[in-house]
């Protein structure tokens, strides 16, 4: 079923947030990665086949605004808590992808009694010296699919920008949009995507599932184990033949893993 969207006021109008919603089932709060949501996002569509999905866009993404007041990880985690509250969601399953996983983990550490089920998909937020991550902010747009997908050719099609990159006007608009999104993402991920989360993970009380693509070239598999070791009772599910965007490449496998949290 297609998702609908609406703009909501958050934190007394300090932010305006676009939320995509759809599906029937238990409530699920989805926090997107640094790339935002794709047009007809396949991961989101899959989640909406089992859950009532609420996917807010971070300020700086599409027409969500209020990013100037979000400077630090604490600002952003509290913003996410404000969004949950504005949506009136009581103990939803919180599922975060990559950068969204970092925010979800921060929320669950900050307010451990408010979040009882957490799914971290290829989550950012940690740094292992033995496994340095590629610099997302120095990659050229055409290099991205190689880092995000197991099946790079299929990934390229999924990520097609929805316009003609040889058309200067489209390209200029794309540049502005991209700078706004990644400018916001940089507040969490630049130059190194570590804002001290590892010191706070012990606070998480939620039943936690960690899902990872076995062929993740952006945040490789050892990071799944690092999250598992730091969160009490957390379980890891790895998905073969999937890259960083495991939910886009293998949505059924991710849904099966998620079902264990019900």
């Amino acid at each position, binding site marked *: 079923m297609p998702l609908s969207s609406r703009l909501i006021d958050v934190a007394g109008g300090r932010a305006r947030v676009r939320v995509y919603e759809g599906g029937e089932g238990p409530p699920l709060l989805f926090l997107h990665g640094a790339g935002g949501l794709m047009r007809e996002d396949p991961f989101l569509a899959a989640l909406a086949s089992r859950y009532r999905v609420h996917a807010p866009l971070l300020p700086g993404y599409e027409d969500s605004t209020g*990013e100037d007041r979000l*400077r630090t990880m604490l600002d952003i985690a509290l913003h996410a808590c404000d969004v949950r509250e504005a949506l009136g969601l009581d103990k939803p399953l919180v599922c975060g992808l990559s950068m969204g996983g970092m925010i979800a983990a921060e929320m669950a550490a900050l307010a451990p009694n408010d979040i009882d089920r957490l799914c971290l998909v290829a989550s950012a937020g940690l740094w292992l010296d033995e496994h340095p991550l590629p610099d997302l*902010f*120095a*990659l*050229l747009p055409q290099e991205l699919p190689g880092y995000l997908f197991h099946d790079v050719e299929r990934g390229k099609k999924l990520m097609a920008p929805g316009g003609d990159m040889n058309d*200067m*006007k489209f*390209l*200029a*608009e794309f*540049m*502005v949009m*991209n*700078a*706004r*999104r*990644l*400018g*916001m*993402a*940089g*507040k969490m991920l*630049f*130059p*190194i995507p570590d804002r001290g989360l590892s010191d706070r993970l012990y606070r998480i009380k939620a039943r936690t599932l960690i899902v990872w693509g076995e062929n993740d070239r952006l945040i490789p598999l050892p990071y799944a184990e690092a999250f598992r070791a730091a969160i009490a009772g957390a379980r890891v599910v790895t998905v073969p033949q999937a890259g960083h965007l495991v939910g886009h490449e293998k949505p059924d496998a991710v849904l099966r893993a998620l079902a264990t949290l019900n």
Partner: protein
Amino acid sequence: MKFTWFHLMPWPHLPDDFREKHRSVWVDIPTTLYEPRRGHHVYNEYLDQLEFAETMGFDALGVNEHHANAYGLMPSPNLMAAALARRTSKAAIMVLGDSIALYNPPIRVAEEFAMLDVLTGGRLVAGFPVGTSMDTNYAYGQIPALTREKYAEAHALIMKAWREDEPFAFNGRYTQLRYVNCWPKPVQRPRPPVFIPGGGSLETYDFCLEFDYTYCYLSYSGYLRAKQLMEGYWERVAKSGKDDSPYRGGFAQVICVAETDAEAERLYAPHVHYFYNRCLHVYPGFADAPGYRTIKTLQANALTQLSQAQLRNYPTLTWRDLVDQGYVIAGSPQTVHDRMVDLARTLRVGNIFGLFQVGNMPADKVRHSTQLFAEKVMPRLKAEMFPEWKNEDRFWIKPMQESERRMAAE
């Protein structure tokens, strides 16, 4: 007009196959390409050139700040300015400048600039660049979307530190100091002249106008392409109600002078090509971190920047292209004079930052070009250009009288 002899201090020993073997002259260029023992000679030769420029009558000697690169070897321009302070006595020392968002706490810049101003008897021009994205974000790790806010806060702190006579508390978002107490204070009161390098953002135009700072456009694409940008600046000046003194503006230009136009090509072309093809070989992924430019600026300039980026295909440019399209002003003294007049009129800039040492140009050629410009071009430009503003002194240094000053002992 005011002429600054500006040095980038490039590494002149990059191999011929540098472009093919390495993706960038900045950020991730391997240090194996640097040789400290040769570097010793390079630094000292470059400082000799700056000192020579003072003897040739240049108004200012210019240095600037870059990091993790072979394009400009001055991570600390203040060290070079200090080296020049004791060996010069007339020229302004133009530090263009300290990237104030990179100093923690930024009071360090207020102190070091004050030291330089005192040491030189009031000859410092204080430059406050945001810094390139390569320097500020990639090499120095500043969060791109917060860089400008941090810069603005650092600026406010430095200016207040110079202005106030009593210690004060500074409660910033990025810097908190219980006691701000700038010892020493600069000789020039309330502050040295301030020059701001900019790349066409409206915020920077307004910032310069608000405080009467000189706006400087440092581009290597030449004055013909800079026309649109500087026109935008002067429109903003007119709207602000401020006067249109040409000394509110500055422009950097590669200048090569020889006896004849043909001789200029023979002498300088290889070094100019070295500069455009090796020193400016920056990996596009390092050019502009997302968030570094404001959305307002991007929206205003995205199309222009895209079309300029496409023109920046330096390897395809011949000497004739570079000269005809104004990237480089080169030729006989008469040719250079005529183009400089055209530049100054087109952009309405009273300040020129002349790049005479370019790429791997050796010292003898640097001196030859510098001397011809100083003797045969500069005096004519000074006499001819902007006569109605000849008493303008608001944007320039106000040193101590020579009789009051202590020179370095022989």
